[in-house]
């Protein structure tokens, strides 16, 4: 994450995707490895924050079964639309961040 790469834990035995990352799979307890995950997802729900340091639109994004809460930059937005992670990392204060923007194309949003 510090390098801006969205890598998730994948179980070596059962292929389970795990986020937050963990050394052991919560399903079969086998070891996991970190793998780069693709960044396309589906916008599950979104709203607008007026809080200092988090102003703007944010929402829950489902990326192939992994859900995170990140900022969403773009307009218009709608429930269930395709979005793509544009940036992720760790701030100087130690907090993790995820940023997304909409994907406008004619293809249907991916069913998760």
């Amino acid at each position, binding site marked *: 994450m510090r390098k801006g790469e969205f890598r998730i834990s994948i179980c070596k035995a059962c292929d389970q995707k795990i986020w*937050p990352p963990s050394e052991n799979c919560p399903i079969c307890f086998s070891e996991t490895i970190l793998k780069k995950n693709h960044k396309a997802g589906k916008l599950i*729900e979104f*709203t607008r*924050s*007026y*809080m200092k*340091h988090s102003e703007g639109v944010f929402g829950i994004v489902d990326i192939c079964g992994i859900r995170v809460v990140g900022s969403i930059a773009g307009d218009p937005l709608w429930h269930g639309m395709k979005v793509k992670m544009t940036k992720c990392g760790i701030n100087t204060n130690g907090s993790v961040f995820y940023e997304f923007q909409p994907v406008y194309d004619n293809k249907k949003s991916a069913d998760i």
Partner: protein
Amino acid sequence: MRKVAISSYATTEFLKNSNSSIFELACKPCIDILKNSKLPKKQLDAVLFSTCSEEQYSASILCELLGIKPKISHRIDNLCNSGSNAVVSAFSYISSGLCDYALVVGAEKATSPGNKLVWDITRGIFTLPVYWAAIFAKAHMRKYGTTEEQMGMVSVRNHMNARKNPTALFKEVITLRDVMQSRKIVDPIKLLDCSCSCDGSSAVLLVSEDKAKELTDNPVWIKGIGQQTTSASFSKMTYDLTTIGTAQVAARDAFNMSKINPRKIDVAELHDAFTILEILAYEDLYFVEKGQGGKFVNQHEIAINPRGGILGCGHPVGTTGVAQIAEVTAQLSENAGRRQVKGCKTGLTHNLAAAGTSATVIILGV
């Protein structure tokens, strides 16, 4: 399994800053109970301390300060539902026969680390509870047409109830207009849709069925318990953002154990840390059909949050669950004074933690 009753309770006044240490806060309701109880202190065989404070070994420190040497003493920390977890633990010790008398105390400072779950990196920079509360609200509004006004009425009513509660943090009446015009925090949540952390403490004394009559003529019995944990991270708590699944499971188990129908609940203390959570609770607890929670706000079948709830009283994290139990006990033993709900026989507490990733429901009766 032995039956377990609550024989006495005490709650301190919740304040923004009490200038008391966590231990001074914790001692107050315990001293109140012990001074007024027929129970000799040396017979107290369990002390459970519900708190998210950083003090190590805090239950034993509390025992030393109170001059108690119980068989069992430890701390319970489960964020916002620490208190109800502590009550369930005490129930378990007594019903299993490990002890006869258990003092459960919750105490918290406004600055408690329990106000935020730092571990959950699935939330990104959106770490505070108000963000997930807003997501729940948006989802419910979109799917069922719940309105900001309906949410606002939860705050209006709970603040009104708090006026009759001398221990509540907030004593002012607010109007729906006040709520709707209060500062926007995270859409649709406004300032008066939110509860406020504070200092506060509360304690309850649990006792086995064969000892209950020695301490009180009006025992209030714990009749049903339900609990469920789904995860710690918000992103995994439920795939339906209009439902707190853990609360549904906990409620089902509590109703089954108590053999009491949801429609028979007379009084309930619900986890209204945000107005939307109370609306979800009506549905998750089977008081009303899914999606109808917004309309249920103005019902009069069940007395909801007579103490003022979390919105009216404030939210000292580890204390809330204990204070809920204390309130329902007061109601069922007809000692609630100006806020007494007439003729109530069955009560319920509903206590969530970390975006509803865990829930505890307790049913009480006389």
